[in-house]
């Protein structure tokens, strides 16, 4: 009996490990790809498979655009001259090593940057043809249209699951008549409905980490944003929950434009249509390259991008 178990265990463990360390293993495979062109799980294959499945993204319909963004914290210049387009109906991934300004950039897009007391900014963020930093713009309306999901799941602890999902409406004082329908559709779109439909009156904190993060996504969806910013939404989650959230992102991407910051290049290759690579060489972070995801992972123009996506540094 115990012998049998022992003989099975190593296999199981190997399978588990490859799941957990997906990122590292993929790094190795893509490095060996030159020698072995039939490798099946390289990042470029993943990226190509994804765009092949989705068809070409709708290029041209710009919902959100960052123009010449610079950012400072105190006297420290952290972002230099970032210009990016985010097309509606697409997923854009921002990759790059820690501390290169990805999160700062994403927070600039919905004006969360200004909550840091020493923060400063130059440049424009154009949402539907209007600069969100223009004087007189109602910042709460901007944040209604540009939703955000944070790195750590942060459901409101004093609210039930139902109240959490609908909290955006109450916070922004929007009145709706069909709250139950909206609740169901948001939870369904976030891929959480089946797990929580019988326990909507429990507190959000009772859910697991991955469920809490999907609850936070559902909460962002309830106010019907046109852009959803995700700041490393899966970094605190296990592979199963990560997979579930990636499915969610894929389902959502048809109806809104999504910007996702991630350290996991596999994830960027799996979910995104476009990828921007940020890098800081000790000074301010720069956008080294921005292109379709398959191009970044198959045929990057810059040497630094190639080094990063092939796992040679970072």
């Amino acid at each position, binding site marked *: *009996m*115990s012998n049998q*178990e022992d003989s099975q265990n190593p296999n199981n463990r190997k399978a588990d490990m490859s799941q957990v360390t997906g990122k590292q293993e993929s790094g190795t495979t893509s490095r060996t790809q030159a020698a072995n062109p039939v490798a099946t799980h390289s990042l470029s294959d993943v990226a190509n498979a994804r765009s092949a499945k989705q068809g070409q993204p709708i290029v041209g319909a710009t919902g959100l655009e960052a123009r010449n963004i610079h950012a400072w914290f105190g006297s420290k210049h952290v972002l230099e001259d970032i210009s990016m387009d985010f097309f509606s109906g697409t997923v854009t991934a921002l990759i790059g090593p820690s501390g290169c300004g990805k999160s700062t950039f994403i927070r600039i897009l*919905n004006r*969360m940057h200004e*909550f840091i*007391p020493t923060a400063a900014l130059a440049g424009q963020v154009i949402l539907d043809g209007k600069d969100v930093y223009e004087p007189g713009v109602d910042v*709460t*309306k*901007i*944040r*209604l249209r540009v*939703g*955000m999901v*944070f790195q*750590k799941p*942060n459901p*409101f*602890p*004093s*609210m039930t699951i139902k109240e959490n999902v609908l*909290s*955006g409406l*109450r*916070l*922004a*004082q929007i009145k709706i008549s069909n709250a139950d329908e909206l609740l169901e559709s948001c939870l369904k779109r976030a891929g959480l409905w089946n797990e929580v439909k019988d326990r909507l009156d429990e*507190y959000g*904190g*009772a859910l697991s980490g991955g469920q809490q993060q999907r609850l*936070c996504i559902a*909460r*962002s969806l309830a*106010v019907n944003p046109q852009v959803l910013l995700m700041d490393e939404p899966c970094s605190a989650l296990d592979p199963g929950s990560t997979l579930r959230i990636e499915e969610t992102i894929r389902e959502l991407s048809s109806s809104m434009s999504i910007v996702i910051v991630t350290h996991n290049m596999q994830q960027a290759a799996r979910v995104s249509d476009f990828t921007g690579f940020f890098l800081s060489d000790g000074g301010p972070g720069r956008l080294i390259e921005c292109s379709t995801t398959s191009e970044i992972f198959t045929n990057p123009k810059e040497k630094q991008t190639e080094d990063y996506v092939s796992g040679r540094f970072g």
Partner: protein
Amino acid sequence: MSQTVLMMKPQRPWKLTPKQILPDAIGALFTVATTLLLVAITPLKGKLGFALVLIAMAITTVTAISWIRRDRKAAMNSTTTVLVYIAASFVIIPLASVLYEIVRLGANALSFGMFTADMSLTASDSPLNEGGLLHALIGTAYVVIFATILSTPIGVLTALYIVEVKGRFAGVVRFFVQAMSGVPSIVAGLFIFAVWMVQLGNAYSAVAGAFALTVLMIPTVARTSEEVLKLIPGDLREAGLALGATQWRTVAMVIIPAAKSGLITAVILGIARVVGETAPLLLTIGGADAVNLNPLEGNMSAFPYHVWKNLLIGSENAISRAWQGVFVLMVIVLIFFALARYFGAVKGNKK
């Protein structure tokens, strides 16, 4: 494999065996014996002498045993442990003896009549079954409730200004709040006496007492609320704001509900700070022996006043009345705090 699992019993291998406990037990016996001996043969006499010798002997014995059995580091650890235990007992012994004394002297001759009668027709010296402390109960209720109504919003809003709004004067406000929490209570009483009564020409009343207590209560409520609000993770604020809420909506719907039980604790601590205050009340409520249902004018009594007055009279029955007052006040405060805790914990903060 599953059979062996069934045979396993839960054990605690880290537990000390009798053999290991033996040296400590001998050490404890040695400590007590030597202490008794030392008290007997030296001029150190009395309870204080005994306590001092016992502490010194306990530290020495425990340190010596650890040093002999293990090493210097273990000896240091044992010394610190004993010092911590001694410090803890220094806190617990006075508190427990205060409670014991209050119950012993205050719990006798309690009757239902105490809560229906006042002292207007009874002399303090008369038997305990006559008269009561209804006037003190009503007075304390008025004064504390008004003080709570006034200081809770001011204290919590001050904390919100310091933590959430982070206004330009946040540092100054925090400094003043901290300085105010060190104000002697009689100064608060004098302040209200000088401003509200002398300058504005008002007479003794429950509201004057409430004002004085408010001055004392605001800093406690504000400082505790500030600490509580600081514990709310910044993520929650950002999550609220990222959903398109104004700062006020975020605070009202997210921050305050999340901090609710802490804020209730802040108010409870504030009440605990003022409920037994005597000096500011002596200057502001005037004191009375009859029930006064009008909080806006007329002399008012309160538990601390009732206790103070009866202690001053000094006869046996009067002193018993004072202890009764202390006991009843303590029980009421205990019931009130338990209720507040219960209702504060019913909803929210369920993790």
